[in-house]
């Protein structure tokens, strides 16, 4: 199975919505939240539709529209969305209104918008896309599940072009709830110093990244998506190593064939151990890079990583803001993304130069 990444559209805490790849100065803030830098939505979404949309829906529709615009007229046969918490804002708004109004006279709009497939179906309604449409909600492997489905659709000849994306928004109450699990950094730091020292907790982020995946490549192709694997278990590095080797072997590869390992380390010393253990067994010749100091921690952060990887493969260059380790004269032809959430849900995504 394989698919070409033929266009992208991304709204993230960095200036990415304009289609550039880290051209603007990198955001470095001590606000302890990485909020998305957003376009003026009225310019890309019909204002009549915009009025009932919560922030996550706007981000999702915004990024998907940017992606379709960049594809210049290619219409997807399928829409596949991954989102960990989906429309939690509307869900909690409706949940709280039940008691606030004593189960009477409730506004239906947050209920309608709370449906987890709101973004994928609004993309369909806005663009009149009547093909396959689905939403995966499985924490940190939501986006990987969406990619897996997209690869299958293309392999099955059910779709020539699939619009696939990952979306999650920052919510105050999400922060509060996960703070109970010591998920966030207590001391104030800037996002670019996320990996300094050894401390518990990370910085929350958000974003929406969409990809037009095609059966065929074209002159605008960024990279090739080759394989995806997910697993759900508390595991040590030897289990992880086996999963990585399995995935590489079925693609006729070994670890040394991977030029860059892009890791979802998030600076939380309670759960970063497995990334550090993995780095110890990676080949000397491979580069290692991180990405969560740029986008923050959220359940579909691997969609940001996929956008980063696709652009690295296109430009044949790893931006300095990502590098942890880069052996001299390394050519980047193949990237493996590894990300986990609380060491339970793990995702691997393999990409190659086109």
């Amino acid at each position: 199975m394989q698919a070409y990444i033929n266009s992208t559209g991304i709204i993230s805490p960095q200036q990415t919505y304009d289609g550039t790849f880290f051209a603007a100065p990198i955001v470095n803030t001590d606000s302890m939240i990485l909020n998305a830098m957003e376009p003026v939505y009225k310019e890309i979404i019909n204002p009549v539709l915009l009025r009932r949309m919560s922030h996550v829906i706007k981000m999702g529709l915004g990024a998907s529209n940017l992606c379709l615009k960049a594809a210049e007229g290619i219409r997807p046969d399928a829409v596949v969305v991954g989102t960990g918490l989906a429309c939690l804002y509307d869900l909690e708004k409706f949940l709280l209104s039940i008691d606030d109004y004593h189960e009477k006279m409730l506004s239906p709009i947050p209920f309608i918008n709370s449906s987890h497939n709101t973004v994928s179906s609004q993309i369909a309604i806005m663009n009149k896309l009547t093909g396959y449409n689905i939403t995966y909600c499985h924490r940190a492997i939501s986006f990987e599940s969406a990619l897996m489905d997209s690869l299958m659709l293309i392999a099955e000849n059910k779709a020539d072009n699939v619009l696939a994306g990952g979306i999650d928004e920052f919510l105050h109450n999400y922060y509060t709830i996960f703070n109970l699990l010591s998920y966030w950094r207590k001391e104030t730091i800037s996002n670019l110093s996320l990996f300094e020292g050894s401390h518990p907790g990370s910085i929350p982020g958000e974003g929406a990244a969409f990809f037009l995946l095609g059966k065929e490549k074209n002159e605008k192709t960024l990279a090739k998506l080759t394989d995806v694997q997910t697993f759900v278990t508390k595991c040590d590095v030897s289990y992880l190593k086996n999963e990585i080797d399995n995935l590489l072997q079925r693609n006729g590869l070994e670890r040394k064939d991977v030029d860059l390992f892009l890791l979802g380390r998030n600076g939380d010393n309670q759960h970063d151990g497995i990334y550090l253990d993995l780095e110890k067994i990676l080949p000397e010749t491979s580069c290692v890079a991180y990405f969560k100091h740029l986008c923050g921690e959220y359940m579909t952060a691997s969609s940001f990583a996929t956008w980063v990887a696709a652009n690295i493969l296109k430009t044949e260059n790893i931006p300095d803001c990502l590098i942890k380790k880069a052996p001299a004269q390394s050519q980047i032809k193949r990237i493996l993304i590894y990300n986990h959430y609380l060491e339970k849900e793990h995702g691997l995504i393999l990409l190659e130069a086109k």
Partner: protein
Amino acid sequence: MARRVFITGFGIISAIGNGVEENFKSLTEKRSGIGKVSLLETSLSNYPVGEIKADSETLAKMGGIELSTIDSRTFLIGLIAAKEAVQMSGCEEYLSSMGLVGSNTVGGMDLNDRYYRELISGNGTNKDKVISFDCADAGERIANHLGITRNITTISTACSSSANAIMNGTRMIKNGIADRMLVGGMDALSRFSINGFNSLEILSQTGCKPFDKNRDGITAGEGAAFLVLEAEDVVGSRKIYGEVSGYANRNEAFHATASSPDGEGAVQTMEKALASSYLQPSDIDYINAHGTGTLVNDISEGRALDKVFGDNVPLFSSTKGYTGHTFAAAGAIEAVFSLLAIDRGVVFPNIALNNKLEEMNANPTTELCQHPVRNVLSNSFGFGGSNTTLIFSKI
């Protein structure tokens, strides 16, 4: 694609019974599970519901586990159905290499209902509940209990969720990603869903009456169902209950909550599913309709059946008059009913129907029919225009 996908086991819990046999008995005796709410605390108690009459403690016992504070009702009923499916299939020894596609709409909403305010206040003492408030929790913990670790995911596309889970699991096997998949859905009754549908003014005052002229909305139900799917090349000599022979997923791209009145979206979905199964409309012996009992759905679906099948609409019924609308679980629950129709050679009657729908020509079957059933078509339509049609066939 060459690899065929068979169903070797299934499990179910709903308002009409715990387990396959209890459900079958209720269906054949035309016994509805819809009635007055007794366990869920809600001031909307004048609306009938399809409730499973067992509290969490009882459900935990039925699932063979000790009840812990993070066990949502959604998870518990899912576990009961999943375990029955695995047992019926006899696939216990293969669990470690199986995958799981679960589905639901609002996660452990029964726990959220009680603890969410405390959690967001920041000084929650129930912090262990944090992990059960999302969609993924129930499926993931079922996987943990059964020892499933790879190719696990959760689909949430409103009322078509578990139909999509069945389709996705089938495709994972056809694509060679896994040999065996446990697929299904679960949704527990919650104040959230009841109030949600009430805010849309589509909750029935009297109990849902699918395809009846005087229908007045849906009845909220709860339930769970799981199916064991296996590739034909690994089934061996174990009993096969049917094949997932066709499927299609389409979006109406029409409206956030309503289906198009002409039924065009449903027509296209059914036609695509038929095409994928290489079957003709005349090969279908029974249709398990989505049939929610809302004004819009039943007209739209009824017209779509007329269009696809013309003057020869096969025997069809909606079983939501028994179970209520079980939301994300509906597709899997109705898949179990479809497989029972094939296995036992019966067509289940549409109950609570007194006056024929004028907008469609065909009539649902209202009496139990002993009838050989080779191919069943099952519809699931959800919010956001998410339409899925599945076809199950006798082997």
